[in-house]
């Protein structure tokens, strides 16, 4: 993470579909001015709860749709191909790759729970400096900034709470 406070983030499907179930989900908008959602990601979301949360925050301006440009898609396609060529990696698919490409180009924090993307960025010299946060990093950062009404000593309990709320079947 850079020394400057990140103002913008871009979220992938794995992150959104779990995060939307978390009781303190709106803390995300205290951490970031805007969270971008690529159109390819929005097309993958379909549950009522997640769509309702996304739509309501698009209306409030907390979330913003990101329309992929041809050069972003081209870079994302290169990421997908590179991930599939390497035997070390879990393959990365286009929706997550778009987030990584935009994260690199614009300096946005990439919000993801995708192991393939996390590993890819850690071994690619071109993407190593992109800030990638999972839900746990978001919760930890929100706690550090005292945006969640908890004591820091309760952080483990907060992680557990997130795990339980996102694991419960609807």
């Amino acid at each position, binding site marked *: 993470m850079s020394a400057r406070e990140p103002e913008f983030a871009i979220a992938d499907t*794995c992150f959104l579909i779990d995060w939307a179930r978390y009781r303190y989900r709106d803390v995300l908008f205290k951490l970031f001015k805007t969270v971008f959602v690529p159109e390819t990601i929005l097309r993958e979301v379909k549950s009522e709860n*997640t769509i309702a949360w996304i739509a309501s925050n698009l209306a409030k301006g907390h979330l913003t749709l990101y329309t992929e440009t041809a050069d972003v898609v081209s870079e994302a396609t290169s990421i997908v191909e590179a991930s599939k060529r390497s035997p070390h990696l879990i393959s990365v698919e286009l929706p997550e790759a778009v987030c990584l490409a935009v994260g690199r180009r614009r300096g946005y924090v990439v919000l993801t729970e995708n192991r393939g993307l996390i590993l890819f960025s850690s*071994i*690619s010299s*071109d993407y190593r400096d992109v800030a990638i946060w999972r839900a746990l990093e978001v919760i930890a950062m929100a706690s550090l900034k005292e945006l969640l009404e908890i004591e820091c000593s309760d952080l483990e309990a907060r992680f557990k709470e997130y795990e339980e709320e996102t694991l419960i079947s609807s």
Partner: protein
Amino acid sequence: MRFLELNSADLDEVLKRYAEEEAEAREVRRRYADWDYIRKQPPRIRAALEYYVESGDIRRACLIAGMDLEDFRELLRRANMPVVV
């Protein structure tokens, strides 16, 4: 696209750490999974769930199951399987 040099200390270190984390994550998935539920699923779904337990690769597991991501995530919840990252 540039990758860390193969056989470089950096790459070895990242891959070693990843392998250790993945082994731990796989163990968590195996331990928490509701195996009775998994065994009752149709062959394609069962294969996808078992693949996910072993690999943690949700995108490929979706392809095996023939499901989209959000439906497969819901299936993981029903199988009591945490998404470990």
